[in-house]
C-alpha cells in the first residue's frame, strides 16, 4: 500500500472520467486487457515473472499488449485507463488511445488523436501544455541516404549528443543533416503530412520538432510528445506504427500527473461533460 492511495485514487477517477467522456464522444470504445499475460517477444515493458516454468509479464506497455492480443483484422478505435509497469513493482496510471486499421488516411488518424489530447487537457483545465510533433522518417532518410548504422545514429540522437555526432566516422554532409534535424523546430517542416496536420489543427500549442524521438521501437514515423512548462518531464506521448499493412496511431497520457495538475470543480466534473 502506498501513501495516500485512496485520495490519489479519487483524483485519478475524476481525471479518468473527464477523459473517458472525450473518448466516448469521439467514437472510441474502452478495452480491458488482462493484468498478466504470457511473455512474448512483442511485449514491451511490464514486470517479468515466472510461474510453473512459464514466463509472464505483468501490466506491459498497452500498445504492444494490444497488438499481440489481436486475432482478427478489424478497425479498432479503442481507449484504455490502465496502470503500466516498467521493470519495477510500482506502476504509472495512463490513459491512452489507439486507432488501428480502417479506411481513414494516416494524416486523419493523427489529426484526430492530437485533437483528442488537446480536448482532454483543456477539459482538465490544464492550460499550459505544448505538443511537439516529429518524424522518425526524417532521420531514416539521412540514415539510408548515407548508408549509416541505424543503432549508432539513434544512440546519439536520443541523447541529442552533438559531441557524439561530430565524432562519428561518417561523411560531413551526413553530420550536417543530422545536426540540422536536431536544430529544426517551428510551425512548418517541409514534410507534407506533418504540415497538413499542423495547418489543419492550427493551434499555438502544436510545434514541429524533429528532435522529438520516442523510445519505443515499434514507432516508425510520426511521433509526438506532450509537456508543460511546470513539469520537468513529458506528460504524454505517442506515435505511428505499422500493424500488418495498416498504419496505426496511438498515444498515452500520464494520468497521475494530469490528475495532479487538473482543476476540478466542487461538484466533480459534471460541468465539464
Amino acid at each position: 500500500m502506498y501513501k495516500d492511495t485512496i485520495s490519489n485514487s479519487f483524483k485519478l477517477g475524476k481525471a479518468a472520467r473527464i477523459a473517458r467522456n472525450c473518448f466516448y464522444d469521439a467514437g472510441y470504445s474502452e478495452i480491458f486487457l488482462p493484468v498478466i499475460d504470457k511473455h512474448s517477444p512483442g511485449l514491451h515493458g511490464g514486470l517479468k515473472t515466472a510461474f510453473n516454468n512459464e514466463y509472464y509479464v505483468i501490466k506491459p506497455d498497452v500498445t504492444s499488449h494490444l497488438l499481440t492480443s489481436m486475432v482478427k483484422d478489424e478497425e479498432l478505435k479503442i481507449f484504455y485507463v490502465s496502470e503500466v509497469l516498467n521493470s519495477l513493482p510500482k506502476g504509472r496510471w495512463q490513459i491512452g488511445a489507439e486507432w488501428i486499421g480502417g479506411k481513414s488516411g494516416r494524416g486523419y488518424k493523427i489529426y484526430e488523436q492530437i485533437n483528442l489530447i488537446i480536448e482532454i487537457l483543456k477539459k482538465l483545465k490544464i492550460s499550459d501544455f505544448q505538443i511537439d510533433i516529429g518524424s522518425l522518417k526524417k532521420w531514416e532518410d539521412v540514415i539510408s541516404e548515407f548508408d549509416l548504422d541505424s543503432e549508432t545514429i539513434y544512440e546519439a540522437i536520443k541523447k541529442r549528443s552533438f559531441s557524439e555526432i561530430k565524432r562519428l566516422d561518417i561523411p560531413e554532409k551526413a553530420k550536417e543533416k543530422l545536426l540540422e534535424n536536431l536544430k529544426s523546430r517551428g510551425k512548418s517542416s517541409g514534410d507534407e503530412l506533418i504540415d497538413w496536420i499542423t495547418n489543419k489543427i492550427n493551434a499555438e500549442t502544436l510545434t514541429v520538432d524533429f528532435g522529438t524521438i520516442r523510445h519505443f521501437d515499434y514507432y516508425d514515423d510520426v511521433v509526438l510528445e506532450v509537456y508543460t512548462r511546470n513539469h520537468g518531464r513529458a506528460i504524454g506521448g505517442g506515435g505511428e506504427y505499422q500493424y500488418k499493412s495498416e498504419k496505426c496511431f496511438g498515444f498515452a497520457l500520464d494520468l497521475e500527473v494530469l490528475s495532479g495538475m487538473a482543476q476540478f470543480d466542487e461538484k466533480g466534473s459534471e460541468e465539464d461533460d
Partner: protein
Amino acid sequence: MINFVMPKGRLMKKAAKLLKQIDIEIKEPEDRELIVRDDNFSWIYSRVFDVPVFVENGIDMGIAGSDVIDELESDVFIPLDLPFGQCRLSVITPVDRELRIEQMNNYRIATKFPNITKKFFTSAGIDVNVIKLHGSMELAPKTAVADAIVDIVDSGNTIKANGLKEIYKIQDVGARLIVNRVSQKTKFYEINELIDQLSGIL
C-alpha cells in the same frame, strides 16, 4: 533565465573556467548559499551525484560526470562532452593479489557505482556481491569488507598509496553538459545558443 545546476568541488572550478571563455561568469556561492542568481542564470550548487537528478526532474541544465549519469541511468539530453574531469572507472584489487576478472565469481565488490558494477560483471558472466559504499572505497579491501573495489582512477596515486592496483578499466569517464528534456523544448533557443557557444570553443 536558465536554471543551471553545478557540481560542488573540483568539477565546478573547471566548469567555471570553461564558461568564462564564452563570457559567462559563475557567481561562486558565499558561505552556505545554495542558489545564486544573476541577470541570465540561476546557479544551483549541489552534490556531484545529485546534479543529474535535479536536471532530470526540472532544472534546465547542469554539468555532471558521465559515471554518475550512467549509474543513475538519467533520462536527460547529453549534448556535449566537456574537456575536463577525464578519468576512468576501474576494477581495483590489493596489490599483493594476482587476480583476473574471470576469477572473481562470488567476490565481494565495494563501490559507489552498484548499477554499473553489476552490469559489468553480469555482462562478463561473473556473479559478484556488490556492496554500496558512499566514500573511502580504499577502506573496504583493507578491512576485508570487500575483496575488490570499483572506483574512479585519475592519476592512480591514491590507490597506490593504499596498497591497491587497477586491474581492469570498465569505462572512460568525463564531464558532460546535460539538459532537461522539457527545457530543451521550452527554452529551445537560449539552450541551443549556449550549446553552440560552448561547442565553438571545444
